[in-house]
């Protein structure tokens, strides 16, 4: 099994607000992230796909194909957007790094047809990231082998 990883960057605005709480409670829990005018980040997403290289091409998944999927599912949806207002998949959720990563996992997993989505790591800054890992990897560190499609 081989893992391949591709990165994509996007820049978005967000703020944290739980509508069930008072403004004071939001400020107490979320600190400066609660500023309703929002702020932004340069997010970096690393996407890892695991599988066996196709004997004909030597590739787990053509990185050009992965690049297109990432642009369509992530870049077009999130880049230069306000995550609180412009991303229907995040409606009703607080756009934390954890929630954005889980949303991206849900978008990408069904789109990876060759190999299998293994892990994604979303950096909100160089010092903060959320990671999603496939259950098979999280449970025993091994991935069942999967032949070329």
């Amino acid at each position, binding site marked *: 099994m081989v893992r391949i990883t591709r990165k994509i960057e996007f820049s978005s605005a967000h703020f*944290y607000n*739980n509508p*069930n709480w008072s403004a004071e409670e939001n400020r107490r*829990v*979320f*600190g400066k992230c609660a500023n309703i005018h929002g702020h932004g980040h340069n997010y970096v997403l690393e996407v890892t796909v695991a599988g066996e290289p196709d004997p004909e091409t030597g590739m787990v998944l053509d990185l050009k194909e992965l690049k297109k999927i990432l642009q369509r599912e992530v870049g077009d949806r999130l880049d230069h957007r306000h995550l609180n207002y412009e991303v229907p998949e995040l409606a009703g*959720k*607080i*756009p*934390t*790094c*954890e*929630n954005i*990563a*889980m949303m991206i*996992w849900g978008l990408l*997993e069904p789109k990876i047809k060759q190999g299998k989505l293994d892990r994604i*790591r979303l950096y909100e800054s*160089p*010092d*903060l*990231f*959320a*990671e*999603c*890992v*496939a*259950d098979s990897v*999280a449970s025993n*560190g091994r991935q069942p082998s999967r032949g070329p499609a």
Partner: protein
Amino acid sequence: MKVSLGRRYRFAASHRLHNEKVSADENRRLYGKCNSPFGHGHNYVVEVTLAGPVDPATGMIANLGELDPFVEKEVIDAFDHKYLNEEVPEFQRLVPTTENVAREIFRILEKFPAAKLERVKIEETSKNSFEYCGRLERTGRTNE
């Protein structure tokens, strides 16, 4: 799918790799220039990974407003600008290799109450990193 949260912190400290139980020659053979008697130092990076459910009220595994002060108080204040061999009690009996530093920091951060500690990774330099995941003893070392 399992989700986790990672946060990176930094401290600068000095250390000396030296085992009192073996001879000076053996220490030099074992630890090379890391055995230099006056010690040397690194800019350490500590990457802390927490797992656990995402709280629907906050969207978070752990609130950085709680995690950052905890790590600052328990680790950074104790390790930053210190001589690990003499100023961190654990290393008066343990050689402060970065393997042992990772285990010690894991032991300290396991007490963070709000989320489950999954992994501590320490970058001793940009070329060396060490990971400790607790009882499973899945300690890894990459060395260029």
